[in-house]
């Protein structure tokens, strides 16, 4: 099945990022396709490369970067939401990109299921 993922909350404060990540990993393990992961609202903060969380905890930013780089998942932060929150092309983790709400529209059209976290 083709899944599209929308994440609406920033990392750590809410469980949305962790749940979305776990869902994506499980879906890939089961052989499903992830059309795209789209970050909106505070969700765009998930792709900042300026964070440095404690080493004994999960690094949510790097988890997304690995999904983007190694699994070649298309990971997009909304440009309008990013601009509100100081997320720009020069401060996002590798394997992610910033683009418009058209990317959300396209994945809603293409996917069999759109799952929102947050």
């Amino acid at each position: 099945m083709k899944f599209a993922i929308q994440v609406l909350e920033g990392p750590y404060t809410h469980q949305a990022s962790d749940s979305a990540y776990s869902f994506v990993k499980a879906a890939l393990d089961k052989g499903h396709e992830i059309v795209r992961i789209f970050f909106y609202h505070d969700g765009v903060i998930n792709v900042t490369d300026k964070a440095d969380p404690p080493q004994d905890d999960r690094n949510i930013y790097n988890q997304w970067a690995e999904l983007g780089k190694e699994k070649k998942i298309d990971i997009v932060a909304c440009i309008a939401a990013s601009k509100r929150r100081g997320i720009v092309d020069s401060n996002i983790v590798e394997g992610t990109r910033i683009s418009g709400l058209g990317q959300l529209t396209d994945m809603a059209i293409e996917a069999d299921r759109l799952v929102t976290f947050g």
Partner: protein
Amino acid sequence: MNEQETTEQNDENIKKIMFLMRKAPHGSIYSYEGLETVLIVAAYDQDVTMAFIGDGVFALVKDQDTDDIGIKGFIKTYPVLEQYEIEKVYVDRQSMTERGLTVDDFAIDVIVKDSDEIATLIEDQHAVISY
């Protein structure tokens, strides 16, 4: 091939996309940025439905004045939905009445539906995007 069949063929690339508006208009940005998404998806000529449920129904209350909370406010944007040909704007009856509202309180025309009718609408969609 008659005209109706032609139209149906052309409609194959149009998906039914429903927005569930769940949150109050102020206190979080969900409702505001959610509305921005609705307008983008509508610009892609998709078959858009909106349903306001829970505190989401407050987003439609007319004559909102946000001056005292120092934010822009976006109730004036809602009439634009008509220009985007978004006519399927539903309000959950129970959510509305629980909050002491009637259709006369809203800034735009809406269709009031019972929760089970909204559930049926959700089942009928290709994608449901909730904010």
